[in-house]
């Protein structure tokens, strides 16, 4: 198992390198010259050249790339242009909040998707099974920002069942339950579409597995319905894990939009504010954080997959 995780981590290194190259290139093609901005309008050509040399901007691009990687690896993400503070604490606290939201969304997606999929898969020949798969088909196409807005309008603006935004009370107080109260609606908004995807895959693989010979043989041995179902579900878990892995990106991406609508202090809001402020160091750090989180989460999912399905470990 340890060897599997190690190998899986090795495989994800090219992806991470690819991501850093993309982010680095985007830094380079951004219009605007940082030297001119730093030195001011009245600077002479000589001071600008000196500054260019001091910042290492006259070095060949590969050298600049490795310099940048090296300082990023040491946790130096630069200084935010709009807030004039170090980028690192900004991005790390936002990343933590985004992870809380994405995790809550994943819980909604997984629990809801499994129940909906179980319902529509086990009763796929009857009407309520069709209703369940209709719900999942509808939910799959719903953009997370639309869901968030509908929830906001229906449940917070007109009648205040849930708080409409933020993570804690405006006064700054509140413990776990206050957080939970603030978390419910954003988590549903984030998790609803992935829930539909999981339900659909779970349904089709349930129907698939139930038609296999081993199920007939289990039934013919007189095993109870519950025992048979346990074997069936165990056999659907690998495909469920594959989908879950694909949904991580969707959960993280959707969380960005939902955060803006629910004023959740995560990476989405940070990116949103940084885009309007043209605060590129922050945007780059956010993309890099999201990419790393995404790649590592995928390793975790794959490890879980390997634990359930021994064939994956080979």
């Amino acid at each position, binding site marked *: 198992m340890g060897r599997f995780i190690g190998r899986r981590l090795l495989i*994800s290194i*090219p*992806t991470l390198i*690819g*991501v850093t190259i*993309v*982010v680095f*290139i*985007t*830094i380079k*093609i*951004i*219009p605007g010259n940082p030297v001119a901005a730093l030195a001011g309008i009245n600077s002479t050509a000589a001071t600008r050249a000196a500054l260019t040399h001091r910042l290492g901007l006259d070095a060949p691009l590969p050298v600049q790339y490795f310099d940048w990687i090296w300082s990023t690896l040491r946790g130096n993400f630069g200084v935010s242009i709009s807030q004039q503070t170090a980028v690192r604490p900004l991005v790390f606290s936002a990343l933590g909040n985004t992870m809380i939201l994405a995790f809550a969304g994943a819980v909604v997606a997984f629990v809801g998707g499994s129940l909906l999929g179980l319902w529509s898969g086990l009763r796929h020949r009857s009407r309520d099974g069709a209703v369940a798969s209709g719900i999942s*088909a*509808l939910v*799959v*196409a*719903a*953009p997370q*920002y*639309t869901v968030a*807005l*509908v929830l*906001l*309008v229906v449940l917070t*603006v*007109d009648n205040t069942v849930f708080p409409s935004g933020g993570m804690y009370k405006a006064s700054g107080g509140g413990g776990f339950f206050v957080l939970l109260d603030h978390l419910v609606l954003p988590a549903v908004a984030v998790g609803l579409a992935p829930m539909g995807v999981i339900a659909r895959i779970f349904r089709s693989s349930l129907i698939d597995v139930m038609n296999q010979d081993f199920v007939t043989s289990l039934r013919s041995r007189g095993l109870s319905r519950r025992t048979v179902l346990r074997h069936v579900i165990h056999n659907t878990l690998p495909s469920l894990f594959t989908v879950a892995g694909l949904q*991580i*990106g*969707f959960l*993280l*991406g*959707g969380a*960005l*939009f939902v955060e*803006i*609508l629910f004023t959740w202090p995560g990476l989405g809001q940070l*990116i*949103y504010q940084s*885009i*309007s402020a043209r605060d590129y160091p922050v*945007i780059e750090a956010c*993309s890099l954080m*999201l*990419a790393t989180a*995404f*790649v590592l989460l*995928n390793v975790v999912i794959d490890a879980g997959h390997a634990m359930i399905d021994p064939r994956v470990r080979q």
Partner: protein
Amino acid sequence: MSAIELPLGPRPVPPRQLDADSLVARRTRRKLPLSVVIPGTFLALVALAAIFAPLVAPDSPVAGSVAQRLLRIGAGGHLLGTDGQGRDILSRLIWGARPSLLEGIIPVAVAGAVGTALGMVAGLSSRRIHTLVMRSLDVIYSFPAVLLAIALAAALGAGVVNDIVALSIVLVPPIARVAETEVARLRSADFMEAARASGATWPSIAGRQVLPNIAPVLLVYCTALVGLAIVFAGGLSFLGLGIAPPHPEWGSMLNDLNQDLYTQPVLALIPAVMIFVTALAFNVLGDGLRDYLDIRSEAAS
């Protein structure tokens, strides 16, 4: 006709319907399912409204009067109300359909062409090239599409063209994957063997044997992808990466109206629901086309 119909054999057809024309039509053309007709009609109406926006839109999409700001649905002759700057929302919705639809369709078309070409190259050439193409696409593919689109569009700067470029890049890998899977299924087919044996050149095999066989699957897949691209594009312009104000776009309307969520909550739902319904229509159309064309492919589902 009798009131009770016997369940014995086909119902006799009245003689006047038995002309050659209708017989041919019934044989060659199956009836389009509702899952194609309904979303198809809806999307055609939206597209027509977008094309003829100057004729259809009741008001100017960019000019408004502050005195008329945030009117309710139906108030003051504004069918869908007005936004925070007093602009007619229905007119903005109609004009906004232009960039919003284009940002869904063009990236899929571009990525469809590039992705299909890459998939065919990978599927038909040597093992080395196959590995090179597919592994480099995997690097992009393993990064979540929404995040990549945001990063690219943010780097390129706000604007419709840049959004289209960003979305096109993001959509190439998934399409190339589907194309490659389909080509791999064909590779060992007898007709391919026959084409190779008869000395057909590589481009001729790709164009005459492979492309017609993978086109239906890709068509279905791309139709559904347009829905996704519209959702992504809406998200990008919601983030402020779309069309420059004051011009309307569904995603940026969502951003505008979200500012006034607490004075007129229902208005913000209009562009959000429009994006949802349009994306849903493309999804349903894709499913319907799959059933109609009778495609059974794991890659496209």
